[in-house]
């Protein structure tokens, strides 16, 4: 290693410089959002680049008054329900298909997989009309099923691949102990599918938590809105009160960033799974 040490060090410095620069580019807007939230309305004009003069939580209090707590609660309810439905429905479908030898089941699999390619913003007109005609507008119950439907194809693909590799000896053993097929699924297969379930759950949760277009169209009542639609209100509510907007954005984004920092390994593995 030592014989090319000097050149090696220059190259290392350049490489660190590149990732360092990009990291700074990524961190700067987030850091600025937090600093701006603590500034006064005057400071943000007179000294946009500097640190806040004093650290007060006034703007956070103003921002919270918009109903961020309600939006966050709504997002938690909608995301949790939709992800649970996706896991259960896709898990069952993928297992039955993976263990079936019928050609029809393979065709059904291909049909479900075909849904993966359809983006919701390309079919938004009938989707909106159907959901509102069924009187499911402004209802979390309604939007949860739509979110579930759009999560099912990819999750079914994921589970299908996982169940194909699942050791069948374990299922055979359970069967010999007298388990019925559904009991094999719930007592043997699912408990041993932790990594696949976690991966699928994180992936879908990130997308549903952040989903905007459907929520914008279907949840128009203030008490029904989820976070992505709710934070849009900050802009209208606080014209020229930029610290309050930034405080609201901080409240909305920092919990999810914190959760990501805690579970970063699982997050990265889950989302990188899209490439496999």
């Amino acid at each position, binding site marked *: 290693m030592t014989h090319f040490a000097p050149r090696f060090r220059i190259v290392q410095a350049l490489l660190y410089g590149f990732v360092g620069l990009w990291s700074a580019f990524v961190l700067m807007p987030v850091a600025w959002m937090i600093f701006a939230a603590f500034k006064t309305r005057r400071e943000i004009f007179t000294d946009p680049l500097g640190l806040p003069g004093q650290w007060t939580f006034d703007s956070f209090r103003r921002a919270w008054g918009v109903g961020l707590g309600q939006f966050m609660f709504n997002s938690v309810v909608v995301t949790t329900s939709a992800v649970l439905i996706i896991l259960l429905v896709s898990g069952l479908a993928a297992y039955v298909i993976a263990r079936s030898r019928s050609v029809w089941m393979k065709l059904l699999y291909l049909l479900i997989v075909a849904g993966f390619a359809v983006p919701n913003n390309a079919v938004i007109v009938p989707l909106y009309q159907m959901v509102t005609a069924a009187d499911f507008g402004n209802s979390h119950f309604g939007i949860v099923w739509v979110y579930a439907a759009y999560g099912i194809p990819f999750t079914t*693909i994921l589970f299908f691949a996982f169940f194909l590799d699942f050791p069948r000896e374990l299922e055979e053993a359970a069967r010999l102990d007298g388990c019925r097929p559904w009991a094999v699924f719930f007592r043997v297969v699912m408990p041993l599918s932790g990594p696949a379930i976690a991966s699928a759950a994180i992936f879908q949760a990130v997308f549903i938590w952040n989903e905007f277009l459907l929520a914008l169209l279907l949840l128009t009542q203030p008490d029904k809105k989820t976070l992505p639609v709710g934070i849009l209100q900050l802009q209208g509510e606080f014209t020229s009160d930029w610290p309050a907007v930034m405080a609201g954005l901080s409240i909305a984004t920092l919990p999810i960033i914190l959760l990501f920092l805690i579970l970063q390994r699982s997050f990265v593995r889950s989302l990188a799974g899209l490439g496999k």
Partner: protein
Amino acid sequence: MTDMSRQTGATPTWYGRIAASQSMLVLPALVLCTLFIFIPAFLTIVGSFYAFGLTSERWTPVGLANYVKAGNDPIFWVALKNNLIIVFGSIVMQVGIGTVLAAILDRGIGFGQVFFRVVIFMPMVISAVAVALIWLIILDPNIGILNALVKSLGLSPPTRGWLGDPSISIWMVLIVAGWQYTGFMMVLILAGLQAIPKDLYEAAALDGARGMRAFWSITLPNLRNVLLVAVLITTIGGFKVFDLIFVLTGGGPANATQVLGTYIYLQAFTLTNMGYANAIAVVLLAIAVLLGWLQLKASRQS
């Protein structure tokens, strides 16, 4: 031999039982996908041959008129062109820089990989709406830090603002998209890099191939499929883009940043030309289905 015959004897009846009586368990998935994906997709295509409003009961058949209208609508072509700019710009920025970052994190630097990976990936978990709102203020001509930075360098920022100037705004969208998704591409490609056997590099080093030469002769060929998937995901994302542009520019100024997604929304829910919106949506649907099919094909190979 006996073991195998026992298995093949037992398997069909048991799995056969699943196929027969449990096959109904596929139904929930099938019903949900049919109801909210396939039927809307079908109705989008059907609706593109009619004229109707947001709440109107009457659908007037118009044949291909909506498609002819799209062909003669300069804004439709601007939107499609903008989608292509975002697609190619994002491939260069997100996949290009993502590959370089991934290569550096994989073999280039000794420590700090986890830290850099976490920081650079982080924007991916924030909602595009929040990202757009943060950048909206950063790019604001009155209070934005970009203006302050440019002025402090002794240069003059664009007079109409970064997002108010039609010739600049689409590039700003591209930068914000790059800010959010380059880290995603990086981890995707990093996973591909880490799957390349390390002894390939050792063998190449014995032959005198290190650094850039090893990158060209080992890394890139082994990464081909992952890169293809990364390019396809970015392409699909570039055609589907909605949130970022809706909040950053709303498609403006003067439709300069309109994309298919925002134009469908504008025609459908602002101007209530539902039939015309469907015709534009069919174009987006066709592109997305084609690319999605390619993506599944490519990822099955890897």
